[in-house]
């Protein structure tokens, strides 16, 4: 018989996995909503953050320092990608741009995976070492709780930035009406760069969050990308709130399916959910 406290434990782990999914989904959503580029390299960005953090930790630094260095490194890499590849992609318009975005970021994934595997051949974890916490008889994974808190704070800051600051407002203007934004003096290309760098950092954080609980290998990159795609499909690719909701919801669904029917079926459930949503309401993404 499954006890309530076990279920509570599964739920907390599910929420933590949901935070990871939400961060990835937000990363995809920000960039697609703003520039019509579907960043298929986003999962690899997440893996990169884990690898950088691993290197820093191995050199004797603390976990927090490692996380900060990793996020800065991934953000800087995002800037490079934006200035080079994406600049070329943004030259084309409409469907042409979408396809070009898909192809080039796909190429980027293959390239990065090919480079990284040479230096990081095994699997890497970032141990949080916080043990377990007992709450009213239920044993909760400490790592999951930390992730929940970090995720909630970061997402709150992100929303605060988009709603509260001038830059955030400018971003949302471009989201809604590019021509209008240009008329009031907002430079869409600048905003796109900012958002791409931001999305790289958010994805990087997603990777770190995931690695706090499980091992990450270079080959996980594309799998993470597909998770990100699923979240943005289910949440509606232009809606940040949708991405977060979908992330948390599917994180829970996945963890419970994992618990009751096994990981193989759980993964299939994730993909099938995306397909069903895609068929039911395609307008959310097109």
């Amino acid at each position, binding site marked *: 018989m499954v006890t309530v406290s076990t279920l509570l434990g599964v739920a907390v782990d599910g929420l933590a996995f949901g935070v990871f999914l939400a961060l990835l989904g937000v990363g995809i959503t920000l960039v697609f909503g703003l520039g019509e580029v579907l960043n298929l390299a986003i999962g690899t960005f997440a893996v990169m953050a884990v690898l950088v953090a691993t290197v820093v930790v191995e050199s004797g630094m603390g976990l927090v320092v490692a996380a900060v260095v990793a996020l800065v490194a991934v953000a800087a890499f995002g800037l490079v990608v934006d200035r080079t590849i994406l600049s070329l992609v943004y030259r084309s318009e409409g469907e042409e741009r979408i396809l070009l975005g898909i192809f080039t970021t*796909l190429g980027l994934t293959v390239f990065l995976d090919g480079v990284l595997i040479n230096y990081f051949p095994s699997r890497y974890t970032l141990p949080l070492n916080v043990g377990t916490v007992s709450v009213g008889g239920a044993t909760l994974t400490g790592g999951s709780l930390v992730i929940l808190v970090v995720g909630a704070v970061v997402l709150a800051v992100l929303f605060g930035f988009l709603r509260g600051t001038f830059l955030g407002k400018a971003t949302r203007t471009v989201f809604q009406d590019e021509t209008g934004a240009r008329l009031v003096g907002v430079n869409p290309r600048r905003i796109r760069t900012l958002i791409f760098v931001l999305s790289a950092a958010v994805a990087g954080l997603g990777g770190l969050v995931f690695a706090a609980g499980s091992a990450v290998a270079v080959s996980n990159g594309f799998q993470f990308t597909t998770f990100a795609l699923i979240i943005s*499909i289910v949440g509606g690719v232009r809606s940040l709130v949708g991405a977060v909701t979908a992330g948390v919801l599917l994180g829970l669904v996945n963890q419970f399916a994992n618990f009751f029917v096994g990981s193989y079926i759980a993964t299939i459930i994730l993909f099938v959910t*995306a397909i069903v949503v895609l068929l039911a309401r*395609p307008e959310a993404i*097109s």
Partner: protein
Amino acid sequence: MSARPSLGAEARNVAVVAALFAVAPLAVLGSSYYESVLAHLLLIALFAVALNIVFGHTDQLFLFVGGLAGVGAYGTALLADALSVSAWVTLPVAALVCGLIGLLVSYVSAKRKFTVVLISILTLNLQLVFSEVFVGARDLTGGSTGFPYEYFELGVVAEAIGVEEKLVLYYLVLLLLVATLGVYLRLVHSKYGVAFDAIREDEIAAESIGIDVVRYKTIAGFVAAFLIGLTGAFFARESGYILPGGFTFLAVDVVVLIVLVVGGLRTTLGPIVGAVIVVGIEEFLSSAQSLQSWQSAIFGALLIVLFLYFRRGVVRSVRDALDDAGLTGDREGGGTDAEADGGR
């Protein structure tokens, strides 16, 4: 805008290429490694021809070539084992299943007016479902360790003629490729080709002049998926062993996409030229010891550069160069496809 070479010229080109490939094994006779490379090349070209029909001509970006090929390969083998019949009997059944999957995907996408991004995401998700099933349904598929793939009783034929099994498979695949190109030529030089062009150009306009967009897209989806399933079974036969890892997005789709784009979308020989170039590069990289570990990195970099700067493809570039030099006289329409196809 239909400015492709005439049917006769294209058929002649295909015949020349077929003849070249028919004698190709003679040059490397006895080297089963090169015979494998040649067979692999033709199989990749076959996938690219199929993708050309559905993506090149009707703008439906199928990103589950690997998954469909897997369904064809696993389906053929598992059915043959379960019913204790020859794989020759179950091959068309498995291919038909693949065709129906393609038909369904295209039908739903066309009915619901999916954009190319939506179709690509939909098929990518299906691909991942297939991949999960191949790995996860251990009792059926042998999980990630797979099983030996020795179907189609090629040994009997090989013994009868007195050649190697590998060579029999090679010529079988070549035959399949020539037949497929024949189907392709018939298709694009018929009313279907005209309809495909119209649909790609402007779907709404095509509909308004009485072209049944859903029907044509669905047909393209069926034909392509059927071919992919068919090819998939021989793909596994060529390796002699079936593994889920051989049918993933990164293992099949990425390669096939590059082949098609490098060779030239919407060209008859593009898939073959592309396969020669890409498989050639692959073999070069994997044979050069110093480059081996960088194979996939170089491949990825190549992919980015090609997509950014070289979207017109080799075949079209060469054709235009020949035209400029006044070496070809058999074109129907003049050089307008540079503008019409400059898109991607």
